[in-house]
């Protein structure tokens, strides 16, 4: 047998390359999973770890050890990521900050998805004047640049954890609403929805039982992307001094506090930034896979793949 244009050996090579790539893909997936789990666990158990004496307290200052580089400090204590401008342990601060950054991201996403999905669902399903009003409303919000709107509202309301999340949700719900509406517009005409109508199902039942589940995969993917976006925005707002404020900790705030030492204490700039980036990267690389898991069709594809993969991989 001959192949079209290439000898058969090459076929095997491409297959093997693809398998190797698949494993690298899996590596990234599991790496992301492990990283996020570790981060969330550390953030949740930090008070306990500090109480047990396994970790420095994130609030404990030691002005003698200001801006110590990573490693053993002058008094013999060990600081893996160094200390900040008040002599606090940088690793402890980063984990403390993770609590806020992750919580802000999660709260923002929940709020913007709940608002966006409901409005997008109603607009797409009912159409007519309701749709016009809702879509003009999203136009209004989308025409004001998100960060500018967020700054304006925070100026009026003041900063803080809940306000930051609400404000960010305010700037992002229109995106969710538009995506939802577009999906509903095409689902609404699908024959299974028509079939539900003829079977006498009510409007609410059709919207929430027939249409909504079909949106789950895209909502999950969008949700994870929006999570990282919210986290990055929070970092920006805190950096500017309008988000989480001292003495609380946030990765953006840590970077702002490190700015005067940009030429002397590189670790104060590198590690908080790296924390933001790695968290965002981990969530982004999980998004596609998690989206697949809520879709029965893709789910069974994965199942078949792993079934076929096992004999050779083992």
């Amino acid at each position, binding site marked *: 047998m001959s192949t*079209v244009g290439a000898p058969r050996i090459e076929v095997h090579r491409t297959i093997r390359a693809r398998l190797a790539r698949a494993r690298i893909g899996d590596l990234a997936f599991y790496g992301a999973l492990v990283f996020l789990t570790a981060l969330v666990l550390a953030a949740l158990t930090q008070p306990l770890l500090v109480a047990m004496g396994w970790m420095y307290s994130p609030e404990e200052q030691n002005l003698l050890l200001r801006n110590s580089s990573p490693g053993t400090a002058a008094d013999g204590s060990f600081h893996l990521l160094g200390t900040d401008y008040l002599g606090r342990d940088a690793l402890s601060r980063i984990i403390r900050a993770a609590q806020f950054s992750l919580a802000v991201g999660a709260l923002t996403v929940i709020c913007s998805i709940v608002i966006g999905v409901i409005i997008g669902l109603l607009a797409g399903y009912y159409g007519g004047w309701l749709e016009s009003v809702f879509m003009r409303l999203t136009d209004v919000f989308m025409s004001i640049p998100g960060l500018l709107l967020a700054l304006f509202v925070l100026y009026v309301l003041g900063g803080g954890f809940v306000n930051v999340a609400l404000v960010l949700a305010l700037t992002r719900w229109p995106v969710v609403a538009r995506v939802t509406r577009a999906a509903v517009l095409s689902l609404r005409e699908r024959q299974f929805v*028509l079939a539900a109508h003829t*079977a*006498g199902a009510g409007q609410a039942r059709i919207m929430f039982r027939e249409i909504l589940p*079909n949106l789950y995969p895209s909502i999950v993917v969008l949700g994870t992307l929006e999570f990282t976006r919210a986290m990055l925005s929070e970092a920006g707002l805190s950096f500017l001094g309008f988000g989480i404020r001292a003495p609380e900790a946030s990765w953006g705030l840590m970077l702002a506090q490190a700015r005067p030492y940009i030429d002397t204490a590189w670790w104060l700039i590198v590690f908080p930034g790296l924390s933001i980036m790695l968290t965002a990267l981990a969530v982004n690389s999980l998004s596609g896979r998690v989206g697949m898991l809520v879709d*029965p069709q893709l789910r069974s594809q994965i199942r078949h793949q792993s079934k076929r993969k096992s004999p050779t991989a083992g």
Partner: protein
Amino acid sequence: MNAQGTGSTTARAEVIGNGAFLSIEDLSVEIESQHSARQLLRHVNLHVPQGKVLGLVGESGSGKSLTALAIMGMLPTSPRFLVDGTIRFQGEDLTAATQARLRQLRGSDIALIGQDPMASFNPSMRIGQQISEPLVIHRGWSRRQARHEAIDLLERVGVRQPYEMVDAFPHEFSGGMLQRAAIAMAIGTSPSLILADEPTTALDVSVQDRIIRLLRKLCDEDGLSMLFISHDINVVASIANDLAVMRHGEVLEAGPVRSVLTAPARDYTKELLDAVPEMDGPSLARRRFTPAGELEPRHKREPADLLRVEDLKVQYRLPNSQLFSKRYKLALDGISFDVKQGEILGIVGESGSGKSTTARSVVRLLAPKRGRIMFEGVDLLALSPRRMRRVGTRIQMVFQDPFSSLNPFRTVRRTLDAVLRGQSRQSRKDRDERIEDVLTAVGLGPEFFDRYPHELSGGQRQRLGIARALILQPDVVILDEALSALDVSVQAHVLDLLVRLQAERNLTYLFVSHDLATVKSVCDRVIVMNAGEIVEQGPTAEVFGNPQNSYTRLLLEAIPNAASEMKRLS
């Protein structure tokens, strides 16, 4: 391997006589996925003599389109396809040709006409430019020269106003006109071989007829050779000289059309021929299932009008409505008809005739502008939404597309459960019982209950669609093109099922279809629709045997028909 029938010797003799033109010898194609190899074509032998048309018939997955791709050297590169055997075109083995050589042949010596004309044109490029592209590439013509040629070509294939249409975009064409343009694109460089892959499948019957005549004319005039691929043996019979039947990647039999049609050597070919309800034959399939005794309804009563549609008018708002003046398209222009208890009423017509609109109005998926829909003496249009939801369950619908008509997030059992739960309060046990009953009735065993729609075949999905319509125990079932998305042999099985269920459950069917042959074989009465109006109605035998309206006659004449073709040939 010698799967060819008796005809192959004659075909081969002709080939040799004319100097071998296209001959595929012992072609095998294998796809190598990650861990297994799958044979897609097995030792295929096919011969297209100079100036002749070879028809290739098969159901989806039979490998007929793949054969065309292999000839063009256009098999996908990943996953990789392994090709064995030879494809000899004017003496040259194409399987050994380089990609550069194949590219040279494509569009100049070998041309392809695809299935879906709307998808095969670039939406953002003017038609003339696309038609003349092969001339620019292969002949090095200037754009101006090529544009003139494009106009000539459009005129030749019968596109009206070619001077204007040459600068139009694909979306400004109708489906039939676009397929003509696709033909123009194929013949511009005067190729010697045309591969037509289901060129008429997406078209209406009358349009299909015209396209086939055009292709036949071109073949005769220019001495073109053609490989004509279709799932419809009737269509193939109306154009081809020779016929080959494919299944599961193998050629089952091949030979002159006449010998294959009159004396099929293989059971599968017979099955294909049987599955197509003949227009001329008296094969009223439903009679098989209704022995004389059972025809009587259980509680004897006059067959009364169960459903009565009066002066129904429906209009759509056009998307390009102006700001202050909304524009409408009239979809139904005051139609009236009635349906009697226990009968099968056929509604036929081409796309845009209003037959689906009629069906959807009856189940109130659309809001008619005017008219009445009387069901057992109650006007459905006057009912409150709440009462309509109750009464409406007695009129159910089976949809056309077995893919989009099922919620991909629900298993078989939960699809039906959702219907029951939306309607009445029953215990879980009662619901499960009803679900199992109806699934058994449509022929889906317990092994299917927990599968998702994508784990079912097309026919199984449509069975589930029927089960969903029946589970509320309706009186009227509307079948909206319920068979048209299925393979021919599957169609036959599902049709049998529908006819049996109708007799067993004393159902009334509204059978909406573009397939006149099927309508003729199962319907008691028939309505012919055109442009939102009913042009003719009456008992099936009368309408089909002695059509009064010119449009009905036109429709009937346009149907390609293997049986009458056989008569013509013999």
